[in-house]
């Protein structure tokens, strides 16, 4: 089936940002990572800061972020993206620096780095993708896994008696005085995507005020890890994850 309409007389209202490379994403169908990659790069393009932005890629599903984002990128050791971003920001204080991490990276092995980076109030943006599972390694339990959620290492559902409770790391960092802007967003609907983009845009602008760390949690899906179709995964996320991880601003700058 070909194109239904002619494109004559029409103008482009939305296209892939030029700051994304031509490499197709390796993510599974329906994964929220691709949306957040695109939003970050859209903001970088629209603000005209392509040559002033440095990103730090994590270990996890988004490990190849440097292949997709056509800006200066640095790969970090597992969990250490915020520490590497700290170093980059201190050497190059005029650059926009962001770290991009998943829940296995930021909330498990990198918990210490995360909390201390925010506690020091480093002027960076930390983007945290929370999908309540270790996607890359085959769907094992993560610290953010919900109680009762079935994963490959909790086949009868997560029980708090063995493995504790879901770690709300965004709520933790919101209490630290070094945090300037802390918010939790999603990317499962068009309206949510617009809100997330606004949050990313605001965070890049706040960076140059040098008043503290900006932290954006994006509650996302993992259709492969959850063993669902992408559409089912988004419904499951809205029903089960959003009550535990409610969307909204946790800390907003005082005017």
């Amino acid at each position: 089936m070909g194109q239904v309409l002619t494109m004559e007389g029409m103008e482009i209202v939305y296209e892939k940002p030029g700051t994304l490379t031509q490499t197709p994403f390796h993510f599974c169908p329906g994964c929220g990572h691709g949306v957040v990659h695109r939003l970050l790069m859209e903001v970088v393009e629209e603000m005209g800061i392509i040559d002033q932005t440095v990103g730090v890629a994590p270990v996890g599903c988004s490990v190849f972020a440097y292949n997709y984002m056509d800006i200066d990128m640095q790969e970090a050791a597992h969990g250490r993206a915020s520490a590497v971003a700290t170093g980059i920001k201190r050497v190059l204080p005029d650059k926009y620096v962001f770290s991009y991490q998943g829940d296995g990276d930021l909330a498990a092995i990198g918990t210490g780095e995360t909390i201390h980076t925010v506690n020091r109030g480093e002027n960076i943006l930390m983007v945290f993708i929370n999908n309540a599972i270790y996607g890359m390694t085959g769907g094992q339990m993560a610290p953010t896994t919900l109680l009762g959620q079935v994963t490959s290492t909790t086949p009868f559902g997560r029980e708090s008696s063995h493995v504790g409770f879901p770690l709300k790391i965004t709520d933790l960092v919101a209490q630290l005085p070094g945090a300037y802007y802390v918010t939790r967003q999603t990317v499962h609907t068009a309206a949510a995507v617009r809100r997330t983009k606004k949050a990313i845009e605001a965070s890049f602008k706040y960076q140059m005020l040098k008043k503290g760390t900006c932290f954006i949690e994006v509650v996302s899906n993992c259709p492969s890890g959850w063993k669902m179709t992408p559409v089912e995964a988004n419904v499951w996320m809205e029903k089960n994850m959003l009550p535990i991880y409610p969307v909204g601003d946790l800390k907003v700058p005082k005017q």
Partner: protein
Amino acid sequence: MIHGSVIVAKEVCKGCELCIQACPQESLGLSNQINHNGYRFAVLIKDNCTGCINCALVCPDAAITVYRQPKPVKQPTKVLESA
């Protein structure tokens, strides 16, 4: 009504169907063919697209380009001379 259209990069699309869910006009569907990677890709199945860009916003693979008719230029209304 403003008329729009989308072009889906069929070799990039993975057939996740999120755009089909997001479309308020229900004008997207899956193709009967498969692409190089073996996925059925999204295509326009109806002629009623308004170019609202919802599909492109939720697309995880940035596969959708949206086109829309330019907004009609408003004609200046006749100013009536006061009597």
